[in-house]
């Protein structure tokens, strides 16, 4: 099915000088948007749409691809430096990335995350090319029951990642799910729990909530504490050698990188749940197979590599539904398809039949831009890491300004800014009282998908629950869910069984 003519046409487009110019511009814009909390690929593409209007079709696509490929790379940078994921899938990177930054190892963490991102992105695209002939079959395998189970798997894997604070992780998760139920329910069309406030019809949105939970909460903490992010500035060593060591880490832990990329592409292919579940699943699996699970959450570099490789690999994966049916695999892809429509290309399944050259241009541009983004990030890592040394009295107002601009600009809604403030205070309280915050945004992402697909499944299956166990993908998912719940216990059992005879010997 690889149409060589289309591929050649795409290559021709990409090597022209103007194309490379737009690729570079797109990558840089993407990096900037990724670094600003709240602003991500979706906002960037939406804001740039009017500009692309006047551009050549291919130039516009290349510009957009640059943005899409680079935001997840730099989204990890803020997760590491200020504990604020640039996009929801970067949330898992906070778990070990931020502790590393606090220990003065920000350069190492950024090096590892950028390299893992780059490799993940490449592997994801390689996988995509490999599955092009069977994309339709893959997408058709996943019906509402499978989506429901996938959402459950995502939640479970996040809960497991909270390790010894499981109870409170679950409480925050339950709270997050309840929050996600506020507003319009799309299966029954009912508007729920709106407390008579029109703003709540659409529910509390993820991005403003995330900006609050992470950026604002962290800034409240930093302002109250004073000083800089690095706890002991004398420990901070910002040199390029550290960044290089970080670069080498994904190769040293090649198993983690490969596993993360595989999980990323597979799960990324499923619209809606994709990136976030993939990143957390990769993280949980990394803990699961680790010999030293206690070290996670305290600055283990593997905890940075796993989610970041998965997160970028999903870009390739998210093209699968687009290729097969014109269904956007991610929010970015949805806006991107809109841009294509503006350029007179009809959305929907025919895009692959009639415009394979465009798809190839996109794939190639994503590949080059992904690599470019990693290189730029690595090059500036040393400089970026200095953020952790800036005094709170300077850093806090700047971060808050950018974060709240991000919160506002997603929907041009000033009330979103207040939501960010509210969640910021809540996030700070959670942080202080030992309630893991991470389960909240994930619950917000997955709550709706879980509920909608459950209600749809019941309709499809005439109200019986049997529908959740009839297909083999759903059986595999159920197995994975059970495995993630019992994995810690199984490992504990295995370890104690193994250590018993040794003790007896000793």
């Amino acid at each position, binding site marked *: 099915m690889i149409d060589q003519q289309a591929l050649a046409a795409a290559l021709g487009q990409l090597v022209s000088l103007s194309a490379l110019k737009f690729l570079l511009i797109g990558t840089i814009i993407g990096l900037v948007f990724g670094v600003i909390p709240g602003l991500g690929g979706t906002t960037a593409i939406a804001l740039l749409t009017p500009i692309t209007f006047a551009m050549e079709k291919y130039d516009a696509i290349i510009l957009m691809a640059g943005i899409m490929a680079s935001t997840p790379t730099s989204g990890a940078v803020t997760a590491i430096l200020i504990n604020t994921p640039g996009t929801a899938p970067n949330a898992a990177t906070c778990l070990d990335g931020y502790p590393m930054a606090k220990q003065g190892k920000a350069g190492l963490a950024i090096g590892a995350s950028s390299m893992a991102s780059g490799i993940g992105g490449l592997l994801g695209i390689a996988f995509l090319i490999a599955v092009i002939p069977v994309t339709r079959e893959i997408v058709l395998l996943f019906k509402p029951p499978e989506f429901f189970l996938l959402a459950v798997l995502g939640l479970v894997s996040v809960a497991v990642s909270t390790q010894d604070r499981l*109870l409170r992780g*679950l409480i925050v998760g339950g709270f997050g799910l309840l929050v996600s139920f506020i507003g319009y329910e799309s299966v029954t069309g009912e508007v*729920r729990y709106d407390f008579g406030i029109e703003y709540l019809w659409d529910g509390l949105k993820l991005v403003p909530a995330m900006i609050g939970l992470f950026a604002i909460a962290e800034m409240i903490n930093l302002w109250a504490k004073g000083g800089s992010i690095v706890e002991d500035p004398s420990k901070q060593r910002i040199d390029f050698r550290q960044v290089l060591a970080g670069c080498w880490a994904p190769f040293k832990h090649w198993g983690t990188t490969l596993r993360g990329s595989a999980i990323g592409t597979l799960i990324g292919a499923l619209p809606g749940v994709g990136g976030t579940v993939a990143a957390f699943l990769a993280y949980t699996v990394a803990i699961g197979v680790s010999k030293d699970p206690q070290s996670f959450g305290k600055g283990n570099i593997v905890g940075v590599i796993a989610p970041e490789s998965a997160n970028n690999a999903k870009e390739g994966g998210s093209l699968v539904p687009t290729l097969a049916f014109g269904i956007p695999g991610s929010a970015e892809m949805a806006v991107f398809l809109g841009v294509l429509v503006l350029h007179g290309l009809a959305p929907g399944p025919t895009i692959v039949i009639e415009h394979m050259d465009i798809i190839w241009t996109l794939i190639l541009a994503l590949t080059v831009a992904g690599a470019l983004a990693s290189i730029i990030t690595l090059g500036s890592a040393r400089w970026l890491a200095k953020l952790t040394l800036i005094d709170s009295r300077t850093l806090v107002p700047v971060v808050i300004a950018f974060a709240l601009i991000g919160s*506002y600009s997603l929907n041009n809604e000033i009330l979103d800014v207040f939501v960010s403030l509210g969640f910021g205070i809540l996030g700070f309280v959670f942080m202080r009282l030992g309630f893991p915050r991470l389960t909240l945004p994930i619950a917000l992402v997955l709550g709706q998908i879980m509920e909608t697909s459950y209600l749809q499944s019941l309709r499809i299956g005439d109200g019986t629950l049997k529908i959740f166990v009839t297909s083999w993908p759903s059986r595999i998912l159920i197995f994975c869910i059970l495995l993630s719940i019992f994995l810690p216990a199984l490992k504990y059992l295995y370890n104690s069984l193994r250590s018993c005879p040794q003790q007896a010997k000793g």
Partner: protein
Amino acid sequence: MENLFPRRHRASLVLDLLLLAFCVTIIALSAGLDSRAKLFPVLVGWFTVALIVIDIVAQSDTGFGRAVFTFFSGSAEAEDREVEARKEARSIVHAIVWISIFVVAVWLFGFLPVIPVYMFISMRVFGNNSTLRSLITTAVIMLIIWAFFEYALDYTLYRGLVAELIAD
């Protein structure tokens, strides 16, 4: 009460009760809804209520409470992070108020005028930066924000309630 819940757990207890109140509100509001529209919220609501009750029990200074705590956290050590000195409470309140002031000011006057004022005060009044340094940093950041959003992207940042009222 005084003896049942040790002082270091008070704050967590209050948070648990607030979350509990939220769950109960959602469950109560579900009463009038379509059976399918309330299925998940009620299910998750009760589940969360149960978890919160367990968490409350886990914090009580009773043998049972300590046992529950150990079971869920895998260690017998109590979380000590909430035992923080009272003087810290003042700096926390200060941080929350100062950030809230920013949000309200943006709501009233918009991003462009508020950001530089806020930055300057933060750096000069609350920090130990010189007037010149504060001014230059503020100006550079404002230039970046303006050039990126308003100029390059042709995007209108929120102008504030006051500007809207005047325009009317």
